[in-house]
């Protein structure tokens, strides 16, 4: 069904007008998002909550960290298909990475991994990156906090 209609688009992908065209990878991440859910408070090492001031989208992201690596990651997102797919891909990219590697993931990395996203949806991919940074910052704060304790 989707293929049948997408054939008519060819390579036009959102080049004019308000066409909302998502490729197969984006649609797959939208229908089967990775790492959806919440981490239990007991296993959460970092949590980030960010909103997109541009469109009202929102994302919550949980990480568990072991030996400076993201061992578990989970998210919940409120937003358009672009927001859900980029959130999902971001968690897929960050899972198993070291904190330093995870910090270096950019919105462009997310878009590239998805094989592109409509121009007017590019801002969605920042949501996940910002949520991940917020969660890592939170992890660092928690770590500093526990180190202070005797």
């Amino acid at each position, binding site marked *: *069904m*989707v293929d049948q209609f997408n054939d008519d688009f060819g390579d036009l992908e959102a080049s004019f007008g*308000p066409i*909302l065209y998502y490729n197969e990878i984006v649609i797959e991440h939208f229908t089967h998002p990775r790492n959806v859910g919440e981490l239990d408070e007991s296993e959460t090492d970092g949590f980030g909550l960010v909103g997109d001031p541009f469109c009202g989208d929102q994302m919550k992201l949980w990480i568990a960290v072991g030996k400076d690596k993201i061992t578990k990651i989970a998210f919940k*997102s*409120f*937003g*358009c298909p672009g927001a859900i797919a980029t959130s999902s891909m971001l968690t897929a990219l960050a899972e198993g990475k070291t904190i330093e590697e995870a910090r270096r993931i950019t919105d462009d990395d997310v878009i590239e991994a998805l094989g592109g996203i409509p121009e007017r949806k590019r801002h969605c991919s920042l949501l996940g990156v910002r949520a991940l940074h917020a969660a890592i910052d939170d992890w660092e704060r928690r770590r500093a906090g526990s180190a202070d304790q005797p």
Partner: protein
Amino acid sequence: MIYLDHNATTPLHPRVFEAMLPYLRERWGNPSSPYRFGNQARAAVERSRRRIAECLSCSPTEILFCSSGTEADNLALRGVAHALGARGNHIVTTAIEHHAVLNTCKALESEGFRITYLPVNEDGIVQIETLASVLDDQTILVSVMHANNETGVIQPIKEIADIARKRGVLLHSDTVQTVGKLNVQLADLGVDLAPVSAHKIYGPKGIAALYVREGTPLAPVITGGAQEGGLRAGTENVAGIVGLAEAVALAVEHRETEGKRLAILRDRLEKGVRESIREVRINGARAPRVPNTSNMSFSGVDGESIVLGLDLCGICLSTGSACSTGDPEPSHVLMAMGINAREAQGSIRISLGRDTERDDIDATVQALAATVERLRAVSSIQGSTEPQ
């Protein structure tokens, strides 16, 4: 495919297609040509004009052809503004108009016109008391849509016309969504300017008419040849005009029976959705509405995500106006009704049409319930889990 976006556009009715064919094949002459072959085309245009006038109870001389509902709205607003600009510079419209009107008003604002945007109440109805208070001696035009394209809510046009007439102010009403859905008798409605778009009523795209009450001052927007009394230059879209007339005739002929049928289906849809999905709000449900339109908000999910989810199930519906698809701003219509931005973001519009059957409604309710449930499981925004 289940198509539930008839307020965006409709399929061509086979009878409309048949009526148009001769003017695409054999009778392709220019209506302005001085020989009989041209006269044949001219006759088709004038016959169509008469037919439309009869259907909408006005005079044929009051029907003017142009290319779209948007162009008709532009001609009405800019036409009156430019014809009466010396007399006054104030135009009154509403916060819930289609972009064809809103953005034209914005353009006129930059030309120096003063625009007042009337608010609506939570049911989406313009409060007529507010109209009388904003009219002043500079007001030249009031523009209030007959029914809203996103919610289907019907505006009190007759009452508005009474107020406008008493104050000697012209009234434009966007009737694009009501011809074929309501009994639009133009002379009776009390409006001075009103558009009809073919593709909303099973006619072709690219053709529309503007009703201009006899004696209404109007300046052209498109200048050139003497077509349409000099008010709309350009060779007539003959096949389109014939198609428009056929579509208007069909719309008026089937309005009552089809309206009743669609209202039953729409009510079935809303009942089904309320029963199978928690935390849903039907926008404008308490107001009088055209029978085919339903606008719903689902808390905690985004409208565009619902649209894609249903698209993947082979069901076509939209978040609001097709003219604002992809716009990150939530619907200006719902926001004007006092619905908060996040809830407006979770809204969809379902508009039924002549091809809609009961099975389509039931399949849509099922797909909607499954999609909303799936999206809520992903959503970071949780409403109350209490069943309603």
